[in-house]
């Protein structure tokens, strides 16, 4: 109820803003919806949305997989941590834009560079979170599993995974929001399709209606993924903690 009211207030403010600023700077919600319907009808909206989501998915999976493996190794082994830490600090402090431009220059204006650059921006973040997860693993449970000779698969599934799951979920949640924002920049700079590309076109034409018609549904899809997929997953992996003393 309150959320609906909040959305209503948002659209009301938008409408008032549109009337004050004029259609060139801020088109009215109804105009944006009309344009959105046109783009959807032509199929262009779904094509560009689909391309961007594929890039988000590929970069996200790549970054989480690499970040989880490296983060786990750094959290469990001191030598790996000491070796990897300077690289981690460097990557954490390297601006996303620098990584993107370097990737395009070194690899070329292609999908490998685009997805690789996005993944490289997320990997250090995933490493930091999973490294904390690996550091917080309970050594007492490790010993218990060793004494009772748990097979490797049982240890991974029933001892390690549940301890790392909240960290993985946190990395996934923060990662998704980071990845989709960087994908738009990557597309804006060096791709000929995707939501970022369309936003670039709209910017060059100073077409605010087109810009919002592409930006809003994309934000909506990412919010839906966050609310209906990531958050329930996070709740599921942490449900055994509920009610814990």
């Amino acid at each position: 109820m309150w959320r609906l009211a909040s959305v209503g207030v948002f659209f009301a403010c938008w409408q008032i803003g549109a009337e004050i600023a004029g259609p060139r700077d801020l088109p009215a919600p109804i105009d944006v919806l009309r344009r959105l319907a046109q783009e959807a009808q032509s199929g262009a909206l779904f094509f560009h949305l689909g391309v961007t989501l594929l890039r988000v998915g590929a970069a996200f999976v790549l970054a989480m997989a690499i970040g989880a493996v490296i983060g786990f190794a750094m959290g469990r082994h001191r030598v790996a941590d000491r070796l990897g830490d300077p690289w981690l600090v460097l990557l954490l402090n390297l601006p996303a834009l620098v990584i993107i431009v370097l990737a395009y220059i070194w690899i070329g204006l292609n999908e490998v560079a685009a997805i690789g650059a996005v993944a490289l921006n997320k990997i250090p973040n995933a490493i930091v979170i999973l490294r904390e997860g690996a550091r917080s693993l309970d050594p007492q449970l490790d010993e218990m599993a060793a004494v009772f000779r748990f097979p490797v698969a049982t240890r991974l599934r029933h001892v390690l995974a549940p301890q790392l799951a909240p960290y993985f979920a946190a990395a996934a949640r923060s990662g998704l929001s980071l990845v989709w924002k960087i994908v738009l920049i990557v597309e804006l700079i060096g791709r000929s399709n995707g939501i970022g590309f369309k936003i670039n076109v709209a910017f060059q034409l100073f077409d605010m209606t087109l810009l919002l018609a592409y930006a809003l549904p994309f934000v909506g899809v990412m919010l839906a993924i966050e609310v209906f997929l990531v958050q329930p997953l996070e709740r599921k992996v942490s449900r055994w903690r509920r009610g814990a003393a």
Partner: protein
Amino acid sequence: MNAKSLGGGAARLEVSIKSKVYLGASGERHDALGEVAFALDEGEVGAVVGPSGCGKTTLLRIVAGLDARFEGAISRRQTDRLAVVFQEPRLLPWRDVEDNVRLAAPGIGDEELAALLATLGLGEHRRHFPRELSLGLARRVALARAMAVHPDLLLLDEPFASLDAATASDLVEQIIDLVAARVITTLLVTHDLEAAVRLADVVFVLSERPARLAARIAISSPRRGLTPEAAADVTRKIRSAQ
């Protein structure tokens, strides 16, 4: 460190520790254990007692194979199945009671599991998660997990610590029943002299840290057959040896 394999003789466990040293953060030596040597025959229950912090748990960890940095040797049969009841129950918090037992003993049948849980008074808690259990119940789950693997050698680390007298007494009785029914060689580490005397065939008394074996006191009477006077006499002997 030296882990040896015993042959088919009567001894089920031989402990022969020369020393155990911890190195501090700045390299300083902390002697945890001195010379400790004893043996347990098949089905024998040994209790290790000693002052707080003398190194009892360190000794148990060495016997369990969890600490390999020591001078000396631990000998037990290669084929022996080992189970440990840790001082902290060390249950998987995301698994219920039944799953915690089943994960350690995947081959256990439904009937055997139900009977084991019932014996330990856990029948109505089988679907409870560890956070829903009291410490006494959690220790029983840890004991059920240990018994479910059909151990030849059972190690118990302070199983009665932090329990009220009645709960601790019940747990002693249950351990006596389980160990006697299955002929399990058992090493118990405890500061509870009364429980040690009730449970053990032989009590090993450790000195102050670094612990050395100060005395070996055999208890000849059968468990539960010990008169209060005899128990008090053994307890007195243990106290004077410490």
